[in-house]
């Protein structure tokens, strides 16, 4: 199970709940309310750290940036682009339906939005990043389809709906995953050319995505994950856990950001800072995911809370303790934001808010 993906793509709670909570944390005028909210769930030391960083956000970006609107507008743009791409295929109907079923199933599109934000950070346009944004989502979806299959995680449900292989049969699900992987690369190649992105940049993006989809990322993480599931309880080290999460989840977050920065024309230095930011962001997402599995309700998570614990899976709270995991969250958030220091405040705003959103989400 790709836990980060599950949380990213939940529909379990209404949007207003998510963003309301986030707004409270963002607005200085509601500092008092925010304090009360924090104190109910966090250690005093963490309270101080959280308050400090919130003040930083207010100072850095003011209150003019509307992250909620930004996220929903970009997510809509990506959804529409994916819809258009899939509509244009001349292929067997059952295959088209299977691909659309999973790709257009909704979700916050955080990875694609990250690609666009990274592109804009380095001075590129959103249009230049849309092909890689869509490709990232296709690769992600392909990995979920294959991950859910009986010989892998054997999940019958995904976001409350039947998994692709349950809806369409294993053969079609296998082939839909393959087709989405191929389409991702086709789309980067043709779409980037269509958007006027120089060929050498498009190729660098293909290299990033080609690595993350295979031995340098998702596939390697899945292999390690399966190997760890058979391991005796408690024998999975923090290093091994980190390897799994880095490869299975964080690498795709990283590739999304890096691909966006590359097609946007970022210099090597800029691209590397974006890479580090995304690396920390990807890990942060996973730690939050594990913490929520322990502290969240099933209703909030849109799945059964405590499932990972019950399954004996290695998680950060289990290896570090809940307090240690929360401290690690704070550390990762700080490191991610540090990579944005010294850059244009207006351009970094979406990425700062995205990191904050990731850290404070409830599911």
């Amino acid at each position, binding site marked *: 199970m790709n836990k980060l993906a599950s949380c990213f793509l939940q529909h379990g709670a209404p949007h207003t709940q998510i963003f309301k909570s986030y707004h409270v944390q963002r607005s200085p005028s509601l500092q008092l309310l925010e304090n009360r909210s924090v104190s109910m769930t966090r250690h005093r030391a963490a309270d101080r750290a959280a308050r400090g960083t919130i003040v930083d956000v207010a100072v850095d970006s003011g209150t003019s940036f509307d992250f909620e609107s930004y996220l929903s507008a970009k997510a809509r743009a990506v959804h529409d682009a994916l819809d258009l791409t899939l509509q244009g295929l001349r292929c067997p109907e059952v295959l088209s339906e299977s691909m659309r079923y999973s790709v257009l199933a909704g979700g916050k599109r955080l990875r694609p939005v990250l690609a666009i934000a990274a592109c804009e950070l380095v001075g590129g346009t959103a249009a230049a990043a849309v092909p890689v944004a869509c490709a990232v989502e296709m690769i992600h979806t392909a990995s979920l389809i294959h991950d859910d299959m009986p010989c892998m995680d054997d999940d019958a449900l995904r976001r409350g709906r039947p998994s692709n292989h349950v809806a369409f049969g294993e053969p079609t699900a296998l082939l839909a995953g*393959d*087709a989405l992987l191929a389409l991702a690369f086709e789309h980067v190649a043709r779409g980037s050319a269509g958007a006027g992105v120089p060929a*050498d940049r498009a190729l660098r993006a293909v290299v990033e995505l080609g690595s993350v*989809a295979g031995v340098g990322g998702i596939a*390697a993480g899945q292999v390690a994950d399966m190997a760890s599931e058979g391991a005796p309880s408690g024998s999975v080290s923090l290093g091994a856990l980190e390897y799994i999460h880095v490869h299975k989840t964080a690498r795709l977050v990283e590739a999304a950001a890096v691909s966006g920065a590359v097609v946007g024309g970022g210099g090597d230095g800029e691209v590397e800072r974006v890479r580090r930011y995304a690396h920390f962001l990807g890990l942060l997402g996973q730690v939050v995911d594990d913490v929520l599995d322990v502290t969240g309700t099933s209703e909030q998570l849109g799945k059964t809370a405590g499932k990972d614990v019950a399954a004996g899976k290695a998680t950060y709270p289990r290896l570090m303790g809940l307090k240690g995991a929360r401290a690690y969250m704070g550390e990762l958030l700080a490191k991610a934001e540090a990579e944005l220091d010294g850059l244009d405040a207006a351009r970094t705003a979406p990425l700062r808010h995205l990191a904050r959103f990731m850290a404070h989400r409830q599911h």
Partner: protein
Amino acid sequence: MAMSFHFHPLAASRVHFSPLPFAAAAGAPSPSSSVAIAAHHQHGRRRFSAIVATAAAASAATTEFDFKAYMGERAVAVNRALDAAVPAGEPPAALHDAMRYALLAGGKRVRPALCLAACAVVGGPEPWAMPAAAAVEMVHTMSLVHDDLPCMDDDDLRRGKPTCHVVYGEPIAVLAGDALLSLSFHHMASVGSYPPDVDPEKHPARVVRAIGELARCIGSEGLVAGQVVDLEMTGTSETVPLERLEYIHLHKTAALLEASVVIGAIIGGGTDEQIERLRKYARSIGLLFQVVDDILDVTKSSEELGKTAGKDLASDKTTYPKLLGLEKSREFAEELLSDAVEQLACFDKEKAAPLLHLANYIAHRQN
């Protein structure tokens, strides 16, 4: 390649099926195999006399070309490139081992050879196309690995060896296929994959275009589409109409052969006209491959073809001989070969020799 199998009424006496030793086919043939191959060739020549006549006329100018040596050399070069592309001993070991097992299991490397030959025929140095040649073989291997899975063809043997999922388990086989597909694009897109003498101005755009072509030929409008339609007829006794049979073969087989040729020509710096001629050549030989497969199925025993009985895909139950009759199928094969050869007419004869011989090879092979 999933070879079709069909019980011909006249073949009721067949009672034993055993795979040929594919090592002989994949590597240097042993003396006895050479004799057997020669014998089959003699036999085949009588049956395909019309085709041979056409081919003989077309290739008269290049009788000195040593096709066998050409294929042997290309296979060695491609194997070296594939071996380097998926290094042994890297973590995670199980995944790399499975990829290498599937990728380096031998095979004639026909698709890579087509890619390299297409690059050469438009005037490009063959090393320019080697990354693309490796990529098409990775894609081909990926399709076989996934095809062999229990939920698909459910094959336990491939070229006489246990299939990837039998050796490594289904999960690793699924992931190895995904990783090979991703690696094909990664390898083609990497600057370091290419020799230093590529044209620095034009090369990136050529590679982008080639990647677009390869991806399109693999996915929902190509290879995968063929597999989906082939599976759709599983379990029914309905005969597939000719148009649909052709659709399956054009997508499942011809699409990747087409991509092999087209991307070789693109990276070799071919003009649009040259690329389109080569695309037509590739489609003809792609379809030719399947028609000959079906003809061999009727005229050869299962033992000679090294395959398993009891296949259930649409393309196994419906064949050209069944739809057209054996004689008309042979005529169709002759037409396809002639069409393919015709597309090469505008190219330098010496440079076109490999493609000409590849077409002849596909038409006249015995397994």
